[in-house]
């Protein structure tokens, strides 16, 4: 029990961050973290993984993916990749700087598989081996998925504003 507190409590800010990265809505993200912590407490004594971090992240990851699936089903099964554009216009002077809001809007357009690998590796600093455990995929798949996810994100961020912000500029014109 003390063991549990000692090892899991320090992870909570990171768990909230990962959930928020996958599920944008703050309330839903915390619901998932709460659900995750309940499971962690319940299953702590029978975890068969000497690395509590990847074990806890795996639970959180599965819960978040379930939630995303459930939402997609409710929304009439629109695949995440085809969801409507939400990226705002970029002015040409921002060529090299990627801003927080922009990158968050951009990762939302990635399939959940790509989003999770980027968040686990780039934000949560998990090793490739830990990420493989969390996602339950082989190490080779971690590497290829990571490469594809980064390339896809680059394509989204570097696509010309005329393509990424038609909806936005239309609204501004009307106003």
């Amino acid at each position, binding site marked *: 029990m003390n063991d*549990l*507190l000692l090892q*899991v409590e320090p992870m*909570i*800010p*990171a768990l*909230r*961050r990962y959930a*928020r*990265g996958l599920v944008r809505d703050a309330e839903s993200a*915390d619901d998932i*973290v*709460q*659900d*995750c*912590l*309940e*499971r962690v*407490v*319940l*299953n*702590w*004594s*029978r975890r*068969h993984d000497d690395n509590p971090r990847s*074990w806890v992240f*795996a*639970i959180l990851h*599965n*819960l978040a*993916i*379930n*939630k995303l*699936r*459930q939402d997609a089903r409710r929304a009439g*099964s629109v695949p995440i990749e085809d969801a409507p554009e939400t990226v705002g216009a970029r002015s040409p002077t921002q060529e*090299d*700087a*990627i*801003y*927080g*809001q*922009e*990158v*968050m809007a951009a*990762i939302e357009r990635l399939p959940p598989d790509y989003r999770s690998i*980027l968040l686990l*590796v*780039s*934000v949560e600093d998990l*090793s*490739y081996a830990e990420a493989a455990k969390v996602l*339950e995929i082989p190490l080779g798949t971690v*590497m290829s998925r*990571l*490469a594809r996810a*980064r*390339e896809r994100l*680059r394509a989204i*961020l570097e696509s010309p504003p005329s393509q990424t912000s038609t909806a936005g500029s239309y609204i501004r014109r009307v106003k």
Partner: protein
Amino acid sequence: MSIRPITEDDLQAYVDGVLDHERHRNVSEYLLANPEAAKRVSSYRSQAAALRSALETVAREPVPSRLNLTTIAAAQAPGGRTGSLRLAAAAVVLLAVGATGGWSMRSYMLTPTEGVASLAQEASATYGTFAPDRLRPVEVRADGGDAFRQFADATVGRPVTIPDLSRAGYRLMGGRVVPTAHGPGLMLMYEDDKGSRLVMLTRPMAVDQDKPMVATETADVKGWSWAKNGLGYSLVGSLPHADLHSIANVARSQV
């Protein structure tokens, strides 16, 4: 001494700063000579930095009180649910939720009409409805006592075996009555320690009273279905067919 060719994996590891000193230097030299790759690497690095800073505020927020681990642990303590669930899940089937293997099941696909095919479809719909449910996935909780067994028998209208999947790492959560076009069905729901769920639907069969196991698939829900002595069984979940198959074999060996 010639150096090993620089791979895409090296570039990713370079971005993440996890190469050893010498390999890191090799990649740096490579990037000097390859502006296209250098551009990509620099873009990947700024992505990572932007993601980190965008989400940094979340990690700095005070943790909401409902996420207080001590409180959560205290709330669960009196129930003692953990004690009865010490499962020897040694022979763990590694589960990849949602992972879709390259296993083409085309030739096994069924056109749902009736019999086992329609049972599989009902099971898949049941999974889609109740497996994501966090509030009340099951109607009757499995408590290891007779009450659950009686509920199961009453639902199906005859004595049924409730498969024990703990060997595969899944514990029985409970069950629910599911209406089908062929009468009430018994849904059993199982869960592993990572929260991945499986559903097994059982009901009496008019057509296909005895039928060997077949694979079925609707959307990303996979299933294995069979019938024996007039009862049909369909085990479904978001697992690769091969993994689910070995769990289905565990279930079949018991019924």
